[in-house]
Protein backbone atom coordinates (compact mmCIF):
# COMPACT_ATOMS: atom_id res chain seq x y z
CA UNK A 1 0.00 0.00 0.00
CA UNK A 2 1.02 3.58 -0.58
CA UNK A 3 2.06 5.47 2.56
CA UNK A 4 2.56 9.20 2.94
CA UNK A 5 3.92 10.82 6.04
CA UNK A 6 3.18 14.54 5.86
CA UNK A 7 4.32 17.32 8.14
CA UNK A 8 3.25 20.95 7.68
CA UNK A 9 6.62 21.83 6.20
CA UNK A 10 7.30 18.84 3.95
CA UNK A 11 6.36 15.33 2.94
CA UNK A 12 8.68 13.31 5.17
CA UNK A 13 8.06 9.91 3.62
CA UNK A 14 6.24 8.72 0.58
CA UNK A 15 6.44 5.18 -0.68
CA UNK A 16 5.30 1.60 -0.65
CA UNK A 17 4.91 -0.18 2.71
CA UNK A 18 3.73 -3.64 3.68
CA UNK A 19 2.63 -2.67 7.19
CA UNK A 20 2.13 0.46 9.29
CA UNK A 21 1.88 0.42 13.08
CA UNK A 22 0.92 3.53 14.98
CA UNK A 23 -0.87 4.58 18.14
CA UNK A 24 -4.23 6.29 18.20
CA UNK A 25 -5.64 7.80 21.38
CA UNK A 26 -7.54 4.54 21.91
CA UNK A 27 -4.54 2.28 21.49
CA UNK A 28 -2.09 0.79 19.01
CA UNK A 29 -3.33 -0.04 15.56
CA UNK A 30 -1.72 -1.78 12.60
CA UNK A 31 -2.66 -1.39 8.95
CA UNK A 32 -2.01 -4.07 6.37
CA UNK A 33 -2.84 -4.00 2.70
CA UNK A 34 -6.46 -3.15 1.85
CA UNK A 35 -7.40 -2.02 5.33
CA UNK A 36 -10.92 -0.61 5.66
CA UNK A 37 -11.33 3.16 5.44
CA UNK A 38 -10.30 4.63 8.75
CA UNK A 39 -9.71 8.02 10.37
CA UNK A 40 -7.99 8.27 13.72
CA UNK A 41 -6.40 10.81 16.02
CA UNK A 42 -2.86 9.83 16.95
CA UNK A 43 -1.52 9.88 20.47
CA UNK A 44 2.06 10.64 21.41
CA UNK A 45 3.84 7.46 20.43
CA UNK A 46 5.88 5.52 17.98
CA UNK A 47 5.02 4.90 14.32
CA UNK A 48 6.67 2.12 12.36
CA UNK A 49 6.57 1.84 8.62
CA UNK A 50 7.60 -1.44 6.98
CA UNK A 51 9.05 0.04 3.83
CA UNK A 52 10.66 -1.97 1.05
CA UNK A 53 14.15 -1.16 2.33
CA UNK A 54 13.56 -1.75 6.05
CA UNK A 55 11.55 -0.56 9.01
CA UNK A 56 11.38 3.19 9.58
CA UNK A 57 10.68 4.33 13.15
CA UNK A 58 9.36 7.75 13.95
CA UNK A 59 8.39 9.47 17.17
CA UNK A 60 5.04 11.22 16.78
CA UNK A 61 3.86 14.06 18.98
CA UNK A 62 0.19 13.80 18.06
CA UNK A 63 -1.41 13.86 14.66
CA UNK A 64 -3.93 12.07 12.47
CA UNK A 65 -4.10 9.02 10.29
CA UNK A 66 -6.39 8.45 7.36
CA UNK A 67 -6.73 5.20 5.46
CA UNK A 68 -8.70 5.00 2.25
CA UNK A 69 -8.36 3.12 -1.00
CA UNK A 70 -5.25 1.19 0.09
CA UNK A 71 -3.39 4.42 0.92
CA UNK A 72 -2.32 5.47 4.40
CA UNK A 73 -1.75 9.15 5.16
CA UNK A 74 -0.23 10.18 8.45
CA UNK A 75 -0.44 13.87 9.31
CA UNK A 76 1.72 15.12 12.11
CA UNK A 77 3.04 18.53 13.05
CA UNK A 78 5.48 17.05 15.54
CA UNK A 79 7.30 14.02 14.22
CA UNK A 80 10.95 13.06 14.45
CA UNK A 81 12.81 10.37 12.57
CA UNK A 82 15.04 8.17 14.76
CA UNK A 83 18.14 9.80 13.29
CA UNK A 84 17.00 13.33 14.22
CA UNK A 85 16.41 12.62 17.88
CA UNK A 86 18.75 14.24 20.35
CA UNK A 87 18.92 11.60 23.06
CA UNK A 88 20.47 13.83 25.74
CA UNK A 89 17.79 16.47 25.11
CA UNK A 90 15.05 13.86 25.41
CA UNK A 91 16.56 12.57 28.65
CA UNK A 92 16.82 16.03 30.20
CA UNK A 93 13.22 16.75 29.09
CA UNK A 94 12.19 13.52 30.82
CA UNK A 95 13.83 14.59 34.08
CA UNK A 96 12.17 18.00 33.97
CA UNK A 97 8.77 16.45 33.24
CA UNK A 98 9.12 13.90 36.03
CA UNK A 99 9.99 16.63 38.51
CA UNK A 100 6.95 18.63 37.45
CA UNK A 101 4.78 15.53 37.83
CA UNK A 102 6.12 14.70 41.28
CA UNK A 103 4.97 18.10 42.54
CA UNK A 104 1.65 18.03 40.67
CA UNK A 105 0.45 14.63 39.48
CA UNK A 106 -2.45 16.18 37.51
CA UNK A 107 -0.27 18.40 35.32
CA UNK A 108 -1.43 17.39 31.83
CA UNK A 109 1.31 19.29 30.03
CA UNK A 110 4.01 17.60 32.08
CA UNK A 111 2.40 14.19 31.53
CA UNK A 112 2.46 14.80 27.78
CA UNK A 113 6.03 16.04 27.94
CA UNK A 114 7.01 12.89 29.79
CA UNK A 115 5.29 10.69 27.22
CA UNK A 116 6.96 12.57 24.37
CA UNK A 117 10.40 12.27 26.00
CA UNK A 118 9.87 8.54 26.64
CA UNK A 119 8.74 8.01 23.04
CA UNK A 120 11.81 9.74 21.68
CA UNK A 121 14.11 7.69 23.89
CA UNK A 122 12.35 4.49 22.87
CA UNK A 123 12.53 5.32 19.14
CA UNK A 124 16.16 6.36 19.36
CA UNK A 125 17.02 3.12 21.21
CA UNK A 126 15.16 0.89 18.73
CA UNK A 127 17.10 2.12 15.72
Amino acid at each position, binding site marked *: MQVEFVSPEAVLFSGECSQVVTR*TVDGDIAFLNNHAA*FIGALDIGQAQLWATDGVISLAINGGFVEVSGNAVTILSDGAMAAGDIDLSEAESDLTVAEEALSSDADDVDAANAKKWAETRIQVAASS
Partner: protein
Amino acid sequence: MAGGQERILRRRISSIDATKKITRAMELIAASRIVKAQGRVRSAKPYSEKVTDVIANLAGGGAGVDHPLLTQADQVNRVAYVVIAADRGLCGGYNNNVLRAVERAIAADQAQGRQYVLVLSGKKAAGYFSFRGYEVHAAYEGFSDQPNYSDAKTMAESVAELFESGDVQQVRLAYTRFLSMGSQEVTVDQFMPLEASEIGADASENTAGGGYEFEPEPAEILSRLLPRYVEARLYAALLEGSASEHAARQRAMKAATDNAEDLKTNLTRIMNRARQETITTEIMEIVSGSEAMSDDGDHDLDDAITQSLEGSLAALVSDRSDA
Protein backbone atom coordinates in the same frame (compact mmCIF):
# COMPACT_ATOMS: atom_id res chain seq x y z
CA MET B 1 33.85 78.11 -8.65
CA ALA B 2 33.51 75.74 -11.57
CA GLY B 3 36.26 73.38 -10.34
CA GLY B 4 34.42 73.08 -7.04
CA GLN B 5 31.26 72.03 -8.83
CA GLU B 6 33.12 69.31 -10.63
CA ARG B 7 34.43 67.92 -7.36
CA ILE B 8 30.93 67.90 -5.86
CA LEU B 9 29.56 66.06 -8.88
CA ARG B 10 32.36 63.50 -8.72
CA ARG B 11 31.55 62.84 -5.07
CA ARG B 12 27.84 62.44 -5.85
CA ILE B 13 28.57 60.00 -8.64
CA SER B 14 30.72 57.83 -6.45
CA SER B 15 28.06 57.80 -3.70
CA ILE B 16 25.37 56.84 -6.22
CA ASP B 17 27.67 54.11 -7.45
CA ALA B 18 28.00 52.74 -3.93
CA THR B 19 24.21 52.83 -3.43
CA LYS B 20 23.73 51.08 -6.75
CA LYS B 21 25.99 48.26 -5.65
CA ILE B 22 23.93 47.79 -2.50
CA THR B 23 20.56 47.83 -4.26
CA ARG B 24 21.88 45.44 -6.88
CA ALA B 25 23.03 43.04 -4.18
CA MET B 26 19.66 43.28 -2.43
CA GLU B 27 17.90 42.59 -5.71
CA LEU B 28 19.93 39.44 -6.28
CA ILE B 29 19.41 38.22 -2.71
CA ALA B 30 15.65 38.81 -2.95
CA ALA B 31 15.52 36.99 -6.29
CA SER B 32 17.17 33.90 -4.83
CA ARG B 33 14.91 34.00 -1.76
CA ILE B 34 11.73 34.09 -3.85
CA VAL B 35 12.61 30.71 -5.31
CA LYS B 36 13.15 29.27 -1.83
CA ALA B 37 9.99 30.86 -0.48
CA GLN B 38 7.97 29.48 -3.39
CA GLY B 39 9.39 26.04 -2.65
CA ARG B 40 8.24 26.37 0.95
CA VAL B 41 4.76 27.39 -0.16
CA ARG B 42 4.64 24.28 -2.35
CA SER B 43 5.90 21.88 0.28
CA ALA B 44 3.34 23.17 2.79
CA LYS B 45 0.48 22.38 0.42
CA PRO B 46 0.17 18.60 0.90
CA TYR B 47 -0.40 18.95 4.65
CA SER B 48 -3.15 21.56 4.42
CA GLU B 49 -4.81 19.71 1.55
CA LYS B 50 -4.82 16.45 3.51
CA VAL B 51 -6.12 18.15 6.64
CA THR B 52 -8.95 19.65 4.58
CA ASP B 53 -9.69 16.22 3.07
CA VAL B 54 -9.88 14.60 6.48
CA ILE B 55 -12.19 17.32 7.79
CA ALA B 56 -14.50 16.85 4.81
CA ASN B 57 -14.53 13.08 5.35
CA LEU B 58 -15.22 13.55 9.06
CA ALA B 59 -18.11 15.88 8.37
CA GLY B 60 -19.46 13.28 5.96
CA GLY B 61 -19.01 10.63 8.63
CA GLY B 62 -21.38 12.38 10.97
CA ALA B 63 -19.17 14.62 13.07
CA GLY B 64 -21.45 17.27 14.50
CA VAL B 65 -20.84 20.72 13.15
CA ASP B 66 -21.30 22.39 16.53
CA HIS B 67 -17.65 23.11 17.18
CA PRO B 68 -17.05 26.77 18.18
CA LEU B 69 -14.71 27.21 15.21
CA LEU B 70 -17.58 26.33 12.90
CA THR B 71 -20.33 28.32 14.59
CA GLN B 72 -21.19 31.64 13.03
CA ALA B 73 -22.02 34.30 15.60
CA ASP B 74 -25.45 35.92 15.45
CA GLN B 75 -24.01 39.34 16.06
CA VAL B 76 -20.47 40.53 15.51
CA ASN B 77 -19.34 43.25 17.91
CA ARG B 78 -15.60 42.82 17.77
CA VAL B 79 -13.47 41.73 14.86
CA ALA B 80 -9.87 40.58 15.23
CA TYR B 81 -7.49 41.29 12.37
CA VAL B 82 -4.50 39.07 11.84
CA VAL B 83 -2.14 41.17 9.74
CA ILE B 84 0.85 39.71 7.95
CA ALA B 85 3.47 42.27 6.93
CA ALA B 86 7.26 42.37 6.82
CA ASP B 87 9.94 43.02 9.41
CA ARG B 88 11.96 45.14 7.03
CA GLY B 89 11.22 47.93 4.60
CA LEU B 90 12.78 48.58 1.19
CA CYS B 91 10.22 46.38 -0.45
CA GLY B 92 8.16 48.89 -2.38
CA GLY B 93 4.48 49.00 -1.50
CA TYR B 94 4.37 45.54 0.09
CA ASN B 95 3.86 46.70 3.68
CA ASN B 96 1.78 49.75 2.93
CA ASN B 97 -0.66 47.93 0.67
CA VAL B 98 -1.63 45.36 3.28
CA LEU B 99 -1.60 47.86 6.16
CA ARG B 100 -3.82 50.32 4.30
CA ALA B 101 -6.24 47.54 3.36
CA VAL B 102 -6.56 46.66 7.05
CA GLU B 103 -7.00 50.30 7.99
CA ARG B 104 -9.83 50.63 5.47
CA ALA B 105 -11.47 47.43 6.72
CA ILE B 106 -11.25 48.67 10.31
CA ALA B 107 -12.80 52.00 9.31
CA ALA B 108 -15.64 50.15 7.56
CA ASP B 109 -16.19 48.03 10.68
CA GLN B 110 -16.20 51.06 12.93
CA ALA B 111 -18.83 52.67 10.72
CA GLN B 112 -20.99 49.64 11.56
CA GLY B 113 -20.22 50.04 15.25
CA ARG B 114 -17.80 47.13 15.47
CA GLN B 115 -14.63 47.24 17.47
CA TYR B 116 -11.31 45.87 16.33
CA VAL B 117 -8.47 43.81 17.83
CA LEU B 118 -5.10 43.68 16.12
CA VAL B 119 -2.76 40.71 16.01
CA LEU B 120 0.26 41.64 13.94
CA SER B 121 3.16 39.85 12.35
CA GLY B 122 6.10 41.95 11.20
CA LYS B 123 7.90 44.87 12.75
CA LYS B 124 6.56 47.27 10.10
CA ALA B 125 2.96 46.43 10.97
CA ALA B 126 3.57 47.04 14.66
CA GLY B 127 5.30 50.35 13.90
CA TYR B 128 2.56 51.51 11.57
CA PHE B 129 -0.36 50.82 13.88
CA SER B 130 1.20 51.93 17.13
CA PHE B 131 2.35 55.19 15.48
CA ARG B 132 -1.22 55.86 14.36
CA GLY B 133 -2.57 55.26 17.82
CA TYR B 134 -4.27 51.92 17.18
CA GLU B 135 -4.52 49.54 20.06
CA VAL B 136 -2.37 46.49 19.34
CA HIS B 137 -3.34 43.26 21.07
CA ALA B 138 -0.29 41.20 20.11
CA ALA B 139 2.65 41.75 17.80
CA TYR B 140 5.03 39.11 16.55
CA GLU B 141 8.25 39.75 14.71
CA GLY B 142 11.47 38.15 13.57
CA PHE B 143 10.11 35.55 11.16
CA SER B 144 8.55 37.40 8.23
CA ASP B 145 11.52 36.38 6.07
CA GLN B 146 11.28 32.67 6.72
CA PRO B 147 8.31 31.70 8.83
CA ASN B 148 8.37 28.32 10.57
CA TYR B 149 5.40 26.19 11.46
CA SER B 150 6.08 26.79 15.14
CA ASP B 151 5.73 30.55 14.54
CA ALA B 152 2.35 29.97 12.92
CA LYS B 153 1.40 27.75 15.85
CA THR B 154 2.22 30.40 18.45
CA MET B 155 0.25 33.03 16.56
CA ALA B 156 -2.69 30.70 15.90
CA GLU B 157 -2.90 29.82 19.58
CA SER B 158 -3.23 33.44 20.66
CA VAL B 159 -5.82 34.12 17.95
CA ALA B 160 -7.82 31.00 18.75
CA GLU B 161 -7.82 32.00 22.41
CA LEU B 162 -9.30 35.40 21.52
CA PHE B 163 -11.96 33.74 19.42
CA GLU B 164 -12.83 30.85 21.72
CA SER B 165 -13.12 33.08 24.77
CA GLY B 166 -15.87 34.92 22.91
CA ASP B 167 -13.91 38.16 23.11
CA VAL B 168 -14.16 38.53 19.35
CA GLN B 169 -16.86 37.04 17.17
CA GLN B 170 -14.95 37.08 13.94
CA VAL B 171 -11.31 36.89 12.90
CA ARG B 172 -10.08 38.16 9.56
CA LEU B 173 -6.75 37.41 7.99
CA ALA B 174 -4.97 40.08 5.93
CA TYR B 175 -1.99 39.04 3.86
CA THR B 176 -0.50 39.34 0.41
CA ARG B 177 -1.25 36.43 -1.84
CA PHE B 178 1.54 35.35 -4.16
CA LEU B 179 -0.03 34.85 -7.57
CA SER B 180 3.10 34.94 -9.67
CA MET B 181 6.53 36.54 -9.77
CA GLY B 182 4.96 39.67 -11.24
CA SER B 183 1.69 39.90 -9.38
CA GLN B 184 0.76 39.75 -5.73
CA GLU B 185 -2.58 40.65 -4.29
CA VAL B 186 -3.66 41.85 -0.87
CA THR B 187 -6.56 39.84 0.52
CA VAL B 188 -8.58 40.29 3.70
CA ASP B 189 -10.36 36.96 4.24
CA GLN B 190 -12.53 35.60 6.98
CA PHE B 191 -10.36 33.31 9.09
CA MET B 192 -12.61 32.35 12.00
CA PRO B 193 -15.21 30.96 12.28
CA LEU B 194 -14.37 28.65 9.41
CA GLU B 195 -16.87 28.68 6.62
CA ALA B 196 -18.36 25.29 5.96
CA SER B 197 -17.90 25.61 2.20
CA GLU B 198 -14.22 26.31 2.60
CA ILE B 199 -13.46 23.06 4.41
CA GLY B 200 -15.73 21.08 2.14
CA ALA B 201 -18.09 20.17 4.97
CA ASP B 202 -21.20 20.91 2.94
CA ALA B 203 -20.08 19.09 -0.19
CA SER B 204 -19.20 15.98 1.77
CA GLU B 205 -22.66 14.44 1.55
CA ASN B 206 -21.73 13.31 -1.93
CA THR B 207 -18.43 11.72 -0.90
CA ALA B 208 -18.04 8.28 0.59
CA GLY B 209 -17.46 9.73 4.07
CA GLY B 210 -19.95 7.31 5.60
CA GLY B 211 -17.71 4.31 4.98
CA TYR B 212 -15.05 5.32 7.50
CA GLU B 213 -14.26 3.78 10.85
CA PHE B 214 -13.34 6.37 13.45
CA GLU B 215 -11.12 6.19 16.46
CA PRO B 216 -12.05 8.01 18.68
CA GLU B 217 -15.50 9.50 17.90
CA PRO B 218 -15.69 11.73 14.78
CA ALA B 219 -16.61 14.78 16.87
CA GLU B 220 -13.53 14.34 19.04
CA ILE B 221 -11.23 13.93 16.05
CA LEU B 222 -12.76 17.04 14.54
CA SER B 223 -12.15 19.06 17.67
CA ARG B 224 -8.49 18.01 17.57
CA LEU B 225 -8.20 18.57 13.86
CA LEU B 226 -9.73 22.05 13.53
CA PRO B 227 -6.94 23.81 15.46
CA ARG B 228 -4.42 22.08 13.16
CA TYR B 229 -6.36 23.37 10.20
CA VAL B 230 -6.26 26.90 11.58
CA GLU B 231 -2.49 26.62 12.09
CA ALA B 232 -1.94 25.24 8.61
CA ARG B 233 -3.95 28.04 7.09
CA LEU B 234 -2.09 30.71 9.01
CA TYR B 235 1.21 29.05 8.11
CA ALA B 236 0.24 29.09 4.43
CA ALA B 237 -0.61 32.80 4.70
CA LEU B 238 2.74 33.54 6.37
CA LEU B 239 4.59 31.67 3.64
CA GLU B 240 2.71 33.42 0.86
CA GLY B 241 3.41 36.71 2.61
CA SER B 242 7.12 35.99 2.72
CA ALA B 243 7.22 35.00 -0.96
CA SER B 244 5.36 38.22 -1.82
CA GLU B 245 7.72 40.22 0.35
CA HIS B 246 10.76 38.92 -1.50
CA ALA B 247 9.12 39.49 -4.87
CA ALA B 248 8.19 43.06 -3.91
CA ARG B 249 11.70 43.69 -2.62
CA GLN B 250 13.25 42.35 -5.78
CA ARG B 251 11.10 44.66 -7.92
CA ALA B 252 11.78 47.69 -5.72
CA MET B 253 15.51 47.07 -5.73
CA LYS B 254 15.57 46.52 -9.48
CA ALA B 255 13.87 49.91 -9.95
CA ALA B 256 16.35 51.50 -7.54
CA THR B 257 19.31 50.01 -9.42
CA ASP B 258 17.94 51.27 -12.74
CA ASN B 259 17.35 54.72 -11.28
CA ALA B 260 20.88 54.86 -9.91
CA GLU B 261 22.21 53.94 -13.33
CA ASP B 262 20.21 56.75 -15.00
CA LEU B 263 21.25 59.25 -12.38
CA LYS B 264 24.88 58.29 -12.81
CA THR B 265 24.74 58.77 -16.60
CA ASN B 266 23.12 62.19 -16.22
CA LEU B 267 25.55 63.38 -13.58
CA THR B 268 28.56 62.18 -15.55
CA ARG B 269 27.31 64.19 -18.51
CA ILE B 270 26.87 67.31 -16.37
CA MET B 271 30.28 66.81 -14.82
CA ASN B 272 32.00 66.53 -18.20
CA ARG B 273 30.31 69.68 -19.39
CA ALA B 274 31.42 71.53 -16.28
CA ARG B 275 34.97 70.32 -16.76
CA GLN B 276 35.05 71.46 -20.37
CA GLU B 277 33.62 74.83 -19.38
CA THR B 278 36.38 75.30 -16.82
CA ILE B 279 39.07 74.52 -19.37
CA THR B 280 37.52 76.85 -21.94
CA THR B 281 37.26 79.65 -19.42
CA GLU B 282 40.86 79.24 -18.34
CA ILE B 283 42.13 79.23 -21.94
CA MET B 284 40.09 82.35 -22.66
CA GLU B 285 41.58 84.09 -19.64
CA ILE B 286 45.13 83.20 -20.66
CA VAL B 287 44.66 84.18 -24.29
CA SER B 288 42.99 87.46 -23.49
CA GLY B 289 45.68 88.16 -20.90
CA SER B 290 48.48 87.58 -23.37
CA GLU B 291 46.78 89.73 -26.01
CA ALA B 292 46.42 92.57 -23.58
CA MET B 293 50.14 92.33 -22.93
CA SER B 294 51.10 92.38 -26.66
CA ASP B 295 49.33 95.74 -27.13
CA ASP B 296 52.01 97.47 -24.98
CA GLY B 297 54.76 97.02 -27.59
CA ASP B 298 57.16 95.72 -24.91
CA HIS B 299 57.96 92.60 -26.91
CA ASP B 300 60.67 91.14 -24.72
CA LEU B 301 58.48 91.09 -21.71
CA ASP B 302 55.54 89.99 -23.82
CA ASP B 303 57.42 86.98 -25.20
CA ALA B 304 58.57 85.95 -21.76
CA ILE B 305 55.02 86.10 -20.39
CA THR B 306 53.60 84.25 -23.38
CA GLN B 307 56.15 81.49 -22.95
CA SER B 308 55.47 81.01 -19.29
CA LEU B 309 51.73 81.09 -19.90
CA GLU B 310 51.95 78.52 -22.65
CA GLY B 311 53.91 76.28 -20.34
CA SER B 312 51.26 76.44 -17.67
CA LEU B 313 48.51 75.98 -20.27
CA ALA B 314 50.13 72.79 -21.52
CA ALA B 315 50.43 71.58 -17.94
CA LEU B 316 46.79 72.44 -17.34
CA VAL B 317 45.57 70.59 -20.43
CA SER B 318 47.57 67.43 -19.67
CA ASP B 319 46.38 67.59 -16.06
CA ARG B 320 42.74 67.75 -17.16
CA SER B 321 43.05 64.95 -19.67
CA ASP B 322 44.23 62.67 -16.84
CA ALA B 323 40.99 63.12 -15.04
